[in-house]
């Protein structure tokens, strides 16, 4: 590895990636690209690993994706200069595309007749047809409700547009012209990348360029290995739960992290099968970034100078059996997948806490809520849909400080809109948008606070939809002795005779004057709250973030007037010290109660066993078995799960 050329090339690659991403961004059309920056443009080597990847705009979490399998669907030997591959098919290309709304494009970069790199771009298309505008509904059962699907194909052949292909696509979107505009913007980013790569080859020689690419990726790998080597070798298991769409059932998610020296493996075997609504995602046969996101973030956090390349994921292996929620098979729906990605994130974070000496962080709020409202413009009578706000909740407490209020790490890129703008775009008056008192998971470093929003409908009628809600029952767990963060809540017309708890919202009609109060989950705490500096507890009380009762009960800190009562605090803390030596993780009462009956080993066995049944039947079988086994109220053993499953399979002649 050339010590100077590697650093110079790393900077060069970063510069051309940012430049190309900028060009694409500036010329794009749709709000999705412009506002949420759900797009990207980057450059990968022949093996499909990224080496020039932007970090200042666009989606940053795809840096460890690999595009070679999608190229192989066409065949690298079949590509010519001027070709552009297009696809939005999550079921081909080994999970480069993870739901149909993402349209991917790949452009081979030729030099002297051979391919030296691949340019890649994707956009989250604002509509690709399907059941609902925007193509995403939490209740979609199959991919067919989620728009048109194109397996890898050449959109351009030697520079010439494949018009039939595009027409077919255009005829199936509600906004084909805007999507076309976005694609053209991405293509201008791709052609700039090609030009810049050629210029680098001219300057440094093609061989020098390729060596630079190899070195920069190798440097990322080396640093990732260093970061992994600092983890404790061993095998760690952790699990978590998603709530089903109706809010009653649950989906079991499990991760097993094996660390050996400088490499590691994440194995998600034991997680529940895919579900007939849009929480699924695909991860393919290879190491997939969705299956190791917290580990990638851990590497980026502890090796801040690491080049952003695909080399980061080289020392990692991942595995999720086909047909599970985490590696769904055709025809699974995936529009609402991000909350599932976040829950797996939590499960892996649980493993990582055991592998990092001293622990790392508690669970964050764990939802990717987006509040939208459809209302009639009273001047024109036309209905229009606006996003109100992202609705997230705080991060978990961390080994080195409190959690962040109102946002969670895996959705940390989301930005709220000014309330003043929201009120102009919607019929709502926002009565409250603030941190929820006493919501924090207590800890030496407390969790990030929940957000409370109160929306009063001033219009005649309004339809609210909120996708990505979760953790109404299963609280964000605390780590290293920290407490769980509180769960989410939604109440219609609080404080009136019509007050009612409404739980997870799919679609909710609001009448004029209705007030909807929603509270996000809050991050779990990190470390024993009885070890929190009394001064910090006092600050939170004075700031109005926690009550005096919570200070005393959760932190053992007695506050008299505006001061800490040192003596009373010492007494309270000493008296309860022994009670606090509980489990490293606090899971909250709902999950603890569930696991009394359903220990994780039983849930994992159930998931594994059900995988033997045919795909379409699995959701029914798992529900039936859960009911049958749960009737006794006794702790369920692995053997009981196996025999109940055998019985059901025999009954239904499934084996």
């Amino acid at each position, binding site marked *: 590895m050339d010590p100077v050329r590697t650093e110079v090339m790393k900077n060069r690659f970063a*510069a051309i990636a940012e430049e190309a991403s900028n060009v694409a961004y500036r010329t794009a059309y749709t709000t999705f690209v412009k*506002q949420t920056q759900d797009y990207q443009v980057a450059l990968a080597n022949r093996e499909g690993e990224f080496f020039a990847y932007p970090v200042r705009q666009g989606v940053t979490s795809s840096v460890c994706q690999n595009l070679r399998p999608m190229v192989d669907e066409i065949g690298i030997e079949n590509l010519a200069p001027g070709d552009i591959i297009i696809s939005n098919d999550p079921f081909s290309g080994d999970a480069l595309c993870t739901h149909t709304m993402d349209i991917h494009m790949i452009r081979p970069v030729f030099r002297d007749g051979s391919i030296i790199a691949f340019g890649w771009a994707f956009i989250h298309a604002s509509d690709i047809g399907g059941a609902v505008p925007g193509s995403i509904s939490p209740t979609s059962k199959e991919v067919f409700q989620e728009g048109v699907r194109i397996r890898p194909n050449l959109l351009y052949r030697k520079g010439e547009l494949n018009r039939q292909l595009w027409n077919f696509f255009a005829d199936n979107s509600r906004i084909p012209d805007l999507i076309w505009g976005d694609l053209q913007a991405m293509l201008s980013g791709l052609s700039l990348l090609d030009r810049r790569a050629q210029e680098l080859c001219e300057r440094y020689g093609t061989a020098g360029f390729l060596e630079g690419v190899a070195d920069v990726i190798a440097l990322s790998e080396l640093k990732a290995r260093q970061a992994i080597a600092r983890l404790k070798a061993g095998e760690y298991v952790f699990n978590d739960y998603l709530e089903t769409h109706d809010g009653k059932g649950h989906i079991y998610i499990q991760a097993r992290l094996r660390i050996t020296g400088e490499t590691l493996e994440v194995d998600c075997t034991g997680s529940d099968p895919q579900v007939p609504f849009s929480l699924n995602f695909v991860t393919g046969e290879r190491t997939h970034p969705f299956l190791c996101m917290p580990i990638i973030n851990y590497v980026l956090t502890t090796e801040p100078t690491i080049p952003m390349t695909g080399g980061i994921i080289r020392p990692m292996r991942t595995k999720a059996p086909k047909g599970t929620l985490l590696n769904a098979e055709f025809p699974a729906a995936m529009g609402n997948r991000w909350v599932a990605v976040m829950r797996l994130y939590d499960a892996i974070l649980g493993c990582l806490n055991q592998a990092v000496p001293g622990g790392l962080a508690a669970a964050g709020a764990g939802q990717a809520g987006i509040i939208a409202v459809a209302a009639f413009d009273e001047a024109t009578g036309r209905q229009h849909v606006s996003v109100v706000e992202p609705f997230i909740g705080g991060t978990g407490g961390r080994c080195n400080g409190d959690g962040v209020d109102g*946002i969670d790490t895996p959705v940390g890129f989301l930005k709220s809109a*000014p309330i003043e*703008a929201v009120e102009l775009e919607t019929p709502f008056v926002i009565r409250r948008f603030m941190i929820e008192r006493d919501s924090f998971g207590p800890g030496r470093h407390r969790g990030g606070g929940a957000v409370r929003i*109160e929306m009063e409908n001033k219009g005649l009628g309004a339809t609210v939809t909120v996708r990505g809600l979760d953790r109404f029952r299963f609280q964000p767990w605390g780590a290293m002795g920290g407490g769980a963060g509180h769960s989410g809540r939604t109440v219609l017309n609080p404080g009136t005779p019509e007050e009612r708890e409404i739980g997870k919202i799919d679609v909710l009609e609001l009448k004029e004057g209705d007030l909807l109060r929603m509270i996000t989950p809050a991050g779990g705490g990190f470390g024993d709250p009885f070890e929190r500096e009394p001064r910090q507890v006092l600050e939170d009380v004075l700031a109005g973030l926690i009550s005096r009762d919570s200070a005393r009960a959760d932190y053992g800190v007695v506050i008299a007037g505006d001061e800490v009562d040192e003596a009373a605090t010492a007494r309270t803390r000493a008296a309860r010290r022994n009670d606090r030596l509980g489990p490293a993780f606090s899971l909250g009462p709902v999950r603890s109660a569930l696991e009394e009956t359903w220990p994780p080993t039983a849930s994992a066995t159930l998931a594994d066993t059900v995988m033997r049944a045919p795909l379409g039947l699995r959701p029914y079988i798992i529900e039936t078995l859960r009911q049958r086994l749960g009737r006794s109220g006794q702790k369920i053993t692995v053997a009981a799960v196996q025999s109940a499953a055998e019985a059901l399979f025999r009954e239904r002649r499934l084996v």
Partner: protein
Amino acid sequence: MLRIGVDIGGTFTDFALWDGDERGYVAVEAFKVPSTPPDFARGVMEGLEQLLARGRISAEEPALIVHGTTVSTNAVIERSGPPIALLTTAGFKDILGLARLRLDKPVDLFNRRPPPLIPRQLVFEIDERMLRDGRVDRPLDPAQAVAAARQARAAGAVAIAICFLHAYRNPAHEKAAGEAIRAALPELDLVLSHEVWAQQSEYERASAALLNAYARTTMAGYIARLQRFLDERLPKARLFITKSNGGVMATAEAVRMPIHTLLSGPAAGVTAARALGQMLGERHLLTMDMGGTSTDISMIRDGEIMVSHDGKVGDFPIMMPVTAIEAIGAGGGSIAWLDGPVLKVGPRSAGAVPGPACYARGGTQPTVSDAYLLCGYLDESMPLAGSLRLHRDRAEAALAPIASALRRDAVGAAESVVAVATANMLANALPFMARLGVEPGELTLMIFGGAGAIHGPLLADEIGIGRVVVPRASSVFCGFGCLVSDLLYDLVRTVHGMALEAGLIARIYDELRREGERWLAEQTGAEFAIEPSLEYFADVRYRGQSFDVATRIDAAAAAAGDMKAIAAAFHAEHRRLYGHAEPHAAIEILTLRARIRGRLAQPAATPVAPGPARAIEPRRRRRARFDGAWHETAIYARGDLPIGWRGAGPAIVEEETATVVIPPAFSAEIGRFGDLILERRR
């Protein structure tokens, strides 16, 4: 009238002086005095005393002093201001803490939002509410505001900022609360958000109100001190303060609205670059101001300074228009280090203390300046700024560990450090240009500041810029910027959600114009009247989008409220920026803005005819390193080079406070105003 520009930097305070000499720019004088932190006013007064002592100015003579100061900026960055309270609408106590939710580096597991400027207990919720159209939903009880202010004062607050929802549309509640507090508690300083910047976005507006209150104490004290000095020593002098938008304002205004000074530091240099660019006929400029720890770059396109609406001071947003500047963490003091197997430069810097190893002031870590010395760009025998002797042996010793790791000699290591530093700058400069939609080939690089003239040409070479200008007196260029700044004021009216028609638009633009003219008159007083010039803008977007485009509106269209013309201007600007437009799509106007400019007398561009061509002998020759080899390099003294001189790289031009490196690929000449102009040979 005598015009004096004074710009404070970390190390030196720069003075530029123009006495009305009709040779204009060529006749501008410049000098430096050491800065006197933390009491910066002392350096300013010392410089003025020097001018008095030398008889360059006298107490009887009127003078116009334009001063750039960042005393308030430092207070914000160091969070060293006084306790302040915020009054806001009930339900929004976390307006500061939640900000806009987003984390700036979400992949970092330890990333967090910076803490607000004031603690949560100093945010008071007031039970009042305006609706989006400015109608009152819940009336204000002024007594409640007064009670909150009393509580704030009891908690130690010396100032109150007020930001109520929708005050940009109807400020009645902010005004009523303000009046009640002023009457009851006159000792409290008071800032109302709609008076600072009446634009929609409650978090940014609340921040602006707070920042203004925060900066005010520092600024008021600073200006009072300077004013007392002037009253005594230069009673006929008028003092103006530079603004973040590249203009200036009167001192009373600077005390009222010090927020406008917070990003003024680097803006003055860009204003200078624009003026010089106009004289030289350079339409598109990349400016580069390289200091010890960082390098500021900015851009001028079509003779216009690029404006940003999302500036940041410290951790806080500035939404009013400011000169767009990108700070890069690479300077002459940036430290080179080994990150595992690779060489890195910065972002840590040796700063001024202890400084680069070659300064022999206690620094032992290798810096970019040490590399310059070993590459022959700096000379051991030529003290920096006339007094600071450089030590080659120290530089070599500092670079030795890197040299041995790279298996190269000290010079090879030094070259590597320069190459990596250049690549760092490039990695930031290219995306900055891309954001503004400019290709390097179209640009001229204009360099000022201490180290810039060494590294700028190297960067130009690497980045593909073919032309470089090093202004005469480049090291006091920000001081020159003070001489060419105009009175400049930005106005805004949010119209999002209003039913707009021609009459209303015309009326609003007319109000903005009159408000601007009033401002201008306040700045100058009756002493000298100034002819205003106005520019009009609208922030427009396609309906349903959330991305708006600042669109310039011509005066006739603004006066008539011509919506067709506004739409046409928007479509054209959209096409220019993004390559496409939808002329038939519905549009939405979010804000109407105006910028008023009052031009102050300033040095003109009067070229000097070159004297008879004559060969200039270099003072000496020494070896300098370019492209991996030693080149015998001619060393010129800048003072020896007359207008019209031509030379070729490799060469080095030395002046007291700056060294210009001319790489082998460039030719050089002294332009008609005395600036050094490098051009890549084709």
